[in-house]
């Protein structure tokens, strides 16, 4: 107890214990915690008439050159014509380094024995993905590739070769897969999605420019052939000079091409209150969702 009493907290509480009852009027701020603005003498008070005031005041429009409102700088000298021309359609991927991932697993935010996908990563609340500003998921980068210890089953949207090598060296499995905006929204916050009563969507096929990436076994794309991927895995190990583990460490089945959540087929509705999954009964719906040939997606 004497040890405990040494802490400032216990000493403070001892004072409180001996004090009279603490009432509303006794609670007050620390001395000097909140000060009103510094008061200056009248002689020094500038009353907003200073250089600084002018600097903070309203400014002329951007690019305005003295005397001409209608020909601002950027119109007179337009510069490079197509600089950032595609900024409104460019995709953004949130970088996730292997060292970050290791730390998340170490701290218990992520369970390495279960498959890791967007939902798992977003559940940690350490990342924010906003599909509305064209953020399309995670990019696994190679920081921490030298010492990545966990055999994980991870699915990201983009991965470098070094990151792929690091995951596979540790005995894990990595796939890159595409989420369209709708599927991404469901995957980011499944609870919100289910509570709204939305149908679990189908993942649509990637756009034309990304098909090549996701069909390439080198990138461990989810559209690539599994045997190709296996060959590439061995190949990469040979190139990089590491030894693959003898037996498969990750044996769970992969998500299907159109599946957003593990274990939940597309087209079903989830009731969190009843803890039940409702599959479509209508024959047309069932057929539509069972095709597994995702709709073509434009842009």
């Amino acid at each position, binding site marked *: 107890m004497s040890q405990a009493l040494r802490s400032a907290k216990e000493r403070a509480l001892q004072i409180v214990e001996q004090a009279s009852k*603490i009432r509303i009027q006794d609670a007050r*701020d620390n001395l000097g*915690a909140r000060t009103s603005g510094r008061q200056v003498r009248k002689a020094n008070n500038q009353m907003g008439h200073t250089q600084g005031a002018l600097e903070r005041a309203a400014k002329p429009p951007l690019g305005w050159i003295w005397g001409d409102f209608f020909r601002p700088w950027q119109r007179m000298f337009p510069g490079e014509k197509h600089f950032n021309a595609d900024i409104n359609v460019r995709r953004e991927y949130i970088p996730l380094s292997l060292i970050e991932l290791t730390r998340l697993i170490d701290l218990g935010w992520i369970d390495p024995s279960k498959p890791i996908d967007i939902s798992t990563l977003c559940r940690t609340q350490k990342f924010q993905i906003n599909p509305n500003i064209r953020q399309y998921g995670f990019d696994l980068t190679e920081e921490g590739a030298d010492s990545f210890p966990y055999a994980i089953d991870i699915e990201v949207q983009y991965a470098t070769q070094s990151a792929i090598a690091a995951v596979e060296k540790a005995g894990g499995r990595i796939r890159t897969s595409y989420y369209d905006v709708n599927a991404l929204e469901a995957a980011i916050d499944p609870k919100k999605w289910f509570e709204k009563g939305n149908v679990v969507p189908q993942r649509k096929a990637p756009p034309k420019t990304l098909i090549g990436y996701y069909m390439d076994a080198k990138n461990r794309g989810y559209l690539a052939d599994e045997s190709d991927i296996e060959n590439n895995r061995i190949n990469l190990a040979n190139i990089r000079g590491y030894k693959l583990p003898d037996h498969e460490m990750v044996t769970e089945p992969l998500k299907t091409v159109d599946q957003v959540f593990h274990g939940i087929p597309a087209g079903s509705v989830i009731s969190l209150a009843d803890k039940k999954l409702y599959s479509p009964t209508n024959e047309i719906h069932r057929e539509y969702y069972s095709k597994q040939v995702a709709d073509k997606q434009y842009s």
Partner: protein
Amino acid sequence: MFLSQLMRQSGASASAARNLWRKSENPFISTPQAWLTDLEQVEEKKRGIIDLHPDVFRVAPRLDILHRNLTWQKVYRNVQMTKMLTKAEMPGGGRKPWPQKKTGRAHVGSIRQPEFIHGGFANGVRGPRTWFYMLPDAIRLQGLCVALTLKHAQDDLHIVENMQDLQNGDPKFWQDLCESRNWGYSVLMIDDSDVISGGLAEAQEQLAWLNCMPVYGLNCYSIIKYDTVVLSKNALEKIEQRLLQHLHRAKPLNLKYRYQDYKEKILNESRAEENPNMPPIV
């Protein structure tokens, strides 16, 4: 300190052991304890000792944090409905009352100028004015913990087995009970469920100083305002669970309150209050 010995002397039966979620392993942090009593009879009978979570009931007594919470609770609900009309909003005043020059009077353009007696107001109080703001969750959580700690440290926090369906609803009985247990002027009863029945419900209708609240109604202001806070065992469990859950949550604790996030919900809820044709006055 030596509550276990005391307990043996008083013949209490229940044990203190409770599973405290995510309790620190630090051996220098002592576990606060409280007597477990009941409300069946006037005299206090000690049924046992109960462990309290040190992260909730033994935190640093930060009176400044408590102050911020109390100030927030008083201020954030304020609304001022005064609207002082400007000269544009007052009727009339379109005509120049007298010529600009040669009358010897002030040069005025309207009888509603702010200098006039029945003129409009310049820089007046405008419209429904609110002082709404939300304290960060971290501050509010800490405020609750501080308030509970203060009550416990000053021996004003009591744990009872049960509050529901008590036999005696006589106000005299409750007055005697609080008197004999030295519970001070006012008592706040906190229970797990939001409906209370039995003797306590009858008594709290009669007695202004005796009130019941559900766990979600708990707040710093009431904890400090009432002389004594009495928790039921279930309420204790729930308070600890909720507070600790938030203290250890994955989301950051300094999340900003954004009107944007609640706008739709608030406006949808209040749709019934609105006139379908007319916009609200002020």
